[in-house]
C-alpha cells in the first residue's frame, strides 16, 4: 500500500510539476467533499428528528380509522359503504415543489387536506350511519399525516444515497488517490536527484581525464 503509485509515469520535471498540480487539486477536492459530507449528515440528523414517531402517529390514526370503517361496514353493509365512498368529493390538494440541500433535490410538499363537515363530503344521509362520518373524518386526518411522512421518508432516502456516494468519494480520495500521487511525486524527486548526482560524477570524471591528458 505504502509503495503504491501511478503506473507509467516518466520521471521528468514536466511530470513532477503536473503531479504537484494534481495533488493540490485532489487535496482541495477532498476538503470540499468532506465539508459537503458533514453538512449532509447534519441535515440528515435534522430530518431524523422529524421522522421520529411520525410513523407511529400514522399507525395509531389508521388503527382508529379502520375500526370506524369496519363498524360502518357492519352497520351499513359492505356495498353501501363502497357506494358512499365513491361519491365522496376530492379533498386533498398537494403541491410538490423541490428544495435543494447541498445539491440534492428533495421534495417539499405543500398540502391542504380539507377537514370537511358531513354536508360537504358528498354522500347522502338517508342510508349512511354516523360511524361512516367518523371513519371519513379519521381518514381525512390520517391523510395529512401520511403525506407528511411520505415527504420525510423520501427526503431521507435521497439524502442517504447522496451521503453514501459522497462518503465513498471522500474515502477514495483520502486513502487511495492522494497517497498514490504523493508516492509518485516522491519517486520522481528521488529519480531526479539520483540523475543529478550521476551527472555530477560524470562531469568530475571527464574533468579528471581531461586534466590527465593535458
Amino acid at each position, binding site marked *: 500500500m505504502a509503495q503504491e503509485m501511478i503506473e507509467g509515469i516518466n520521471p521528468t520535471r514536466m511530470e513532477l510539476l503536473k503531479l504537484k498540480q494534481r495533488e493540490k487539486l485532489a487535496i482541495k477536492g477532498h476538503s470540499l467533499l468532506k465539508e459537503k459530507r458533514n453538512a449532509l*449528515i447534519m441535515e*440528515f*440528523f435534522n430530518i*431524523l428528528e422529524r*421522522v*421520529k414517531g411520525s*410513523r407511529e402517529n*400514522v*399507525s395509531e390514526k*389508521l*388503527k382508529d*380509522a*379502520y375500526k370506524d*370503517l*369496519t363498524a360502518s*361496514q357492519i352497520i351499513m353493509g359492505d356495498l353501501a*359503504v*363502497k357506494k*358512499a*365512498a*365513491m361519491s*365522496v*368529493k*376530492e*379533498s*386533498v390538494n*398537494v*403541491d*410538490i*415543489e*423541490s428544495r435543494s440541500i447541498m445539491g440534492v*433535490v428533495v*421534495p417539499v410538499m405543500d398540502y391542504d*387536506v*380539507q377537514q*370537511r363537515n358531513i354536508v360537504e*363530503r358528498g354522500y347522502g344521509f338517508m342510508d349512511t350511519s354516523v360511524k*361512516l362520518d367518523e*371513519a*371519513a373524518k*379519521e*381518514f*381525512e386526518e*390520517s*391523510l395529512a399525516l*401520511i*403525506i407528511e*411522512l*411520505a*415527504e420525510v*421518508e*423520501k427526503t*431521507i*432516502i*435521497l439524502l*442517504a*444515497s447522496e*451521503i*453514501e456516494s459522497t462518503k465513498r468519494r471522500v474515502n477514495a480520495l483520502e486513502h487511495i488517490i492522494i497517497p498514490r500521487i504523493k508516492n509518485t511525486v516522491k519517486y520522481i524527486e528521488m529519480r531526479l536527484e539520483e540523475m543529478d548526482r550521476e551527472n555530477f560524477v560524470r562531469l568530475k570524471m571527464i574533468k579528471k581525464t581531461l586534466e590527465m591528458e593535458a
Partner: protein
Amino acid sequence: MKSNIAVMGDPDTVTGFMLGGIKEGYPVRNMEEADQTLEKLIKTDISIIIITEKIGDELRTNIDKLTKERTLPMIIEIPDKNGSIERESEPLNKLIKRVIGVEMIK
C-alpha cells in the same frame, strides 16, 4: 406542480381512503394484480402512491428500484386493517444504519 394521490391495496383499505377523499383508488386482490397496477400507475402523472405494507413487502425489490431511479412518484407504505406487520427491521431503519453506522430511531 399539481399532483394526484392514488391508493392501492386490499378493497377495504381503498374504500377507506376513498372515504377520506382520494379519487384514485385501485383495489387489488393478489400480488400479480398489484404488480401490474403499480407498473401502470408509475407511468401516469400520479405523484404519491399509497400502498399497504403487505404489498410493499412482496414487491420490495421492484419498489426499491423505482424509488431509487426517480423522485416521483413517491411510494409510501401504510399498515392495513390488520395492523402493521412485525418486521425484523424497517427498511428505513436499515438504510439509516447503513449510512450513519449506528441505529438512530427505534
